[in-house]
């Protein structure tokens, strides 16, 4: 079975075609956890936290003028050829943020249009985006974790 990341990567390649080399795609949970790309790259993780933070802050600010978040909302920070475009993405009954970061493109309007198409396509696929798909009763995942196990976990980063 293909996993969700492969499906999203394929959709991105299909929809962005010639733009692929100048655009990066990030999908982020509301709490800032990066879902896509999943590779543990230091900068990518920071992008996740910042995308979530900037969206949530903008949303709070927009409430001052009674502008409420919807799937039609979007957030951009850009120059004439480079920028960041963020859209909300609803799938699996949860809200995520989809960010396209683009650099030196001839037609930024096209990037934003393709971003919306990609967002709608991914939402339509109703992916689980990595959430637990196993139908289990609620139970504790780990029981009785020892101090040794925790120490071993942190030893990976030299702590």
């Amino acid at each position, binding site marked *: 079975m293909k996993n969700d990341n492969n499906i999203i990567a394929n959709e991105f390649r299909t929809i962005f075609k010639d733009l692929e080399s100048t655009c990066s795609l990030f999908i982020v949970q509301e709490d800032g*956890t990066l879902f896509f790309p999943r590779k543990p790259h230091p900068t990518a993780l920071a992008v996740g936290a910042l995308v979530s933070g900037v969206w*949530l802050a903008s949303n709070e600010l927009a409430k001052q003028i009674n502008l409420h978040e919807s799937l039609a909302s979007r957030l951009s920070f850009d120059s004439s050829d480079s920028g960041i475009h963020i859209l909300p993405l609803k799938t699996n009954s949860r809200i995520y943020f989809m960010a396209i970061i683009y650099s030196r493109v001839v037609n930024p309007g096209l990037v934003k249009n393709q971003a919306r198409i990609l967002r709608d396509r991914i939402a339509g696929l109703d992916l689980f985006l*990595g959430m637990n798909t196993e139908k289990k009763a*609620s139970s504790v995942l*780990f029981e009785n974790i020892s101090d040794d196990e925790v120490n071993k*976990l942190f030893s990976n980063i030299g702590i």
Partner: protein
Amino acid sequence: MSFVNFQSKEINCKIVYYGPGLGGKTTNIQYIYQKSSGENKSKMISLNTENERTLFFDFLPLDLGEIRGFKTRFHLYTVPGQVFYEASRKLVLRGVDGLIFVADSQVERHEANQESLNGLYKNLDEQGYDIKKIPVVFQWNKRDLPNVMPVQELERQLNKQKMQSFEAVAKDGIGVFETLKAISKAVLMNLRSNV
């Protein structure tokens, strides 16, 4: 909101350092950042004012090893401590899995500690969290300073639920990892298989 990916066997958890301004929240994660090493060392992000006070948040992702077959990553955040950044604090709390309350042990900061803790409970409640279900660890920071409250008094006034607590001098790293490991363990043991 912890994120357990059963496809890739990954766990992501969000830990927030909360507490009054100048209490040592950023110092904690700066120390962790300085001391962490290896190929998995990540970049720390700080959104600061010109005079180095936290404006929105500090962020440090920690790519840890595996626990019982699950690759584990903790996302450490601090909130801005200054009183007028209440709106920002609320946003950073979204999806929190575990809290470290960094209290300033100095006598003159006791009211600020109390005010910050009350704010934390209020913010969690407003966002629908049940404080009893979120792991919290207290850190009594700045124990090296002369005018500090006795730990028993801090426990009595601030830690009424008798959560785990640690004395610390975060600038020297004392108590920093102990606090982090304690909350990490509590968060992992709080994970549910149906999240």
